[in-house]
């Protein structure tokens, strides 16, 4: 009986589909050129992940709600941008449409639906968000069709990649990294240092008190959700030139964003950044050492973090 189970493992080895290739991994760690390239690529992957994930962690941090429809906003951002680009030919306008469209969508979604389930348990939040994912996916399918689409890279960015610090970096990715860093700084410092940031954090802690002081908490909640949605939409719009668009494209980024924010700590911008970079490195080096189990590595890492420190690396204890 045991034979029946051992045979396939032996066969896999013989066929050469080794799940583990530690030689490649150690070889790379020993070679400086490889090390630099892989680290650069891990950095790029991480920054792209952060751009997509930051909206999710913002909404959880302020509104204490897990926005499971995060991926749908990413999808709408991409589709709005693609359509705007096809109609106008302007990259800037396309990005603006992507961001503005999803901000508006986020505001409406929050005021009409999410606000009803703030107090309810996470199951209700999940259900409402997931219902909208189902509806949005079908709406996109009806409007834009089931086939996958492509936006195409604007001519301005169709240039040769640059060599920076020994690593290869396409100029378009420099733009994305720039936007991600700007977002990180504005959000991180904005929430911590500015008056508006303090009001937002206060409204999250004690909405009753804040509204008693005459501040419209509904507007704050709506605004934050719109901002989170806009960030997701902007990420989708920026990713559109390099990724194909299809209804249901939001799901894979939702899972990725989820992993990043859980590891980094729900609600922490810095945590999302560090978490994203960690995942980027795991993907980059993991694809060398564990080519068939790279995805599994990420889940394993997520499990380990949740077990050792459930609130994530930089998360705060939920009171």
């Amino acid at each position, binding site marked *: *009986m045991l034979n*029946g*189970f051992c045979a*396939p*493992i032996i*066969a*896999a080895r013989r066929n050469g*589909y080794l*799940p583990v290739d530690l030689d490649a991994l150690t070889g790379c760690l020993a070679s400086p050129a490889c090390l630099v390239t892989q680290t650069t690529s891990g950095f790029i992957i991480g920054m792209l992940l952060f751009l997509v994930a930051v909206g999710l962690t913002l909404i959880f941090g302020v509104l204490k709600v*897990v926005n499971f429809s995060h991926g749908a906003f990413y999808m709408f951002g991409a589709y709005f941008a693609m359509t705007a680009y096809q109609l106008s030919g302007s990259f800037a306008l396309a990005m603006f449409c992507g961001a503005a469209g999803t901000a508006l969508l986020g505001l409406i979604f929050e005021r009409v*639906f999410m606000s*009803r*389930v703030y107090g309810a*348990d*996470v*199951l*209700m939040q*999940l*259900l*409402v968000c*997931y*219902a*909208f*994912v*189902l*509806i949005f*996916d*079908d*709406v996109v*399918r*009806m409007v834009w069709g089931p086939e996958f689409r492509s936006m195409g890279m604007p001519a301005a960015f169709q240039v040769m990649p640059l060599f920076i610090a020994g690593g290869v970096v396409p100029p378009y990715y420099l733009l994305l990294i720039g936007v991600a860093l700007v977002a990180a700084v504005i959000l991180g410092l904005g929430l911590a240092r500015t008056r508006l940031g303090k009001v937002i954090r206060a409204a999250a802690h004690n909405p009753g008190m804040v509204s008693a002081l005459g501040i419209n908490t509904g507007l704050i909640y709506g605004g934050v959700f719109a901002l989170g949605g806009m960030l997701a939409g902007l990420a989708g719009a920026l990713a559109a030139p390099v990724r194909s668009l299809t209804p249901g494209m939001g799901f894979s980024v939702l*899972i990725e964003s989820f*992993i990043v924010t*859980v590891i980094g700590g729900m609600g922490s911008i810095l945590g999302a950044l560090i978490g994203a970079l960690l995942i980027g490195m795991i993907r980059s080096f993991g694809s060398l050492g564990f080519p*068939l*189990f790279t*995805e*599994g590595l990420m*889940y*394993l890492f*997520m*499990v380990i973090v*949740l*077990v050792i420190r*459930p*609130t994530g690396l930089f998360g705060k204890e*939920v009171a």
Partner: protein
Amino acid sequence: MTELQAERTGEPLSVARDEARSQRSRYLDVLMALAAFGVLASLPLFFGSKALLDFVIRCSAFGLFATSLNLLVGYTGMISFGHGMFFGLGAYGFGLIMQRTGIPVPAAFVATLVITAIIATVIGAICVRLKEIYFAFVTLAFQMLIHSTILSWASLTGGDQGLRGGIPRPVFLGIDLSNHVHLYVTSCALLVTGLLLMRQIAQSPFGYTLRMIRDNANRASFIGIDVWRAKLTIFVLAALFAATGGIVMALFVSGAYPEFAYWTISGEGIFINMLGGVTTFLGPMVGTVLLLILNDTVTRLTEYYGIVLGIVILFFAIGLRKGLMDFVVEWYVQRRDGAGERG
């Protein structure tokens, strides 16, 4: 009557009467189970329709799964996003054992449950000490990890193609599972037995311990209950029933596919509990029937199943805010109380 009253009046504490009452309700449960099984088993005699039998078999698979999820969600307050992993493990475990070894079906069934229990104990030991939303996240993470492993370990599991070639079904005790009616009756038997056992768990002192943990875990631990052990126990028990559901599904499709261990199965379990209601024992069963009817009817009419399901979920989550059985029970209680007031 309380102990204090018993002391004062000198009457014996009527614990015996409470015991008798719970014994009576246990007999009632068994009677109802036998009656339900009798009705279900005789259906093939009155209706020659294979589709009806298929429907009930699927209800068995999902009903066991959803009710076991309710043991965690409704009775203990542990919201698991990854319960589907045990459904998938049951299907794969049973399928692999039957395909690769020649042992008889009941032995394979028991072996699958033993393997599931071991895995559930390990995973549960890690997960149950986490609270609320973090418990949900880590169960989801474990489910995705198991799903990823099933996909990657293609030489064992067949990868994304699943277990192919069908599941061999040697005859045992005169039951031939490749005969549609035999399979049907066996699924009904598993469903009814499973529900009966889960009912006993829910109505037992242990079940009330779980409710106490759900309502206030701190208070429960103050009066000396080992919360961690109780949660782990129910986690493993729920996993066993979910695995049984997976085995029924594996027999129905004659295979096992990675989709059985994917998040969507956990999601369906949650929808079912929402549709049927988590406050009654049979709520998930009602929800199963509702979701399957909805699924079958909508896919017959349109390919835009997503929009319809989304609207239904919104209606229940935001509009009704409770499941169907919750409504029924509330209405019944209101009528009874109303009658009591009038009478």
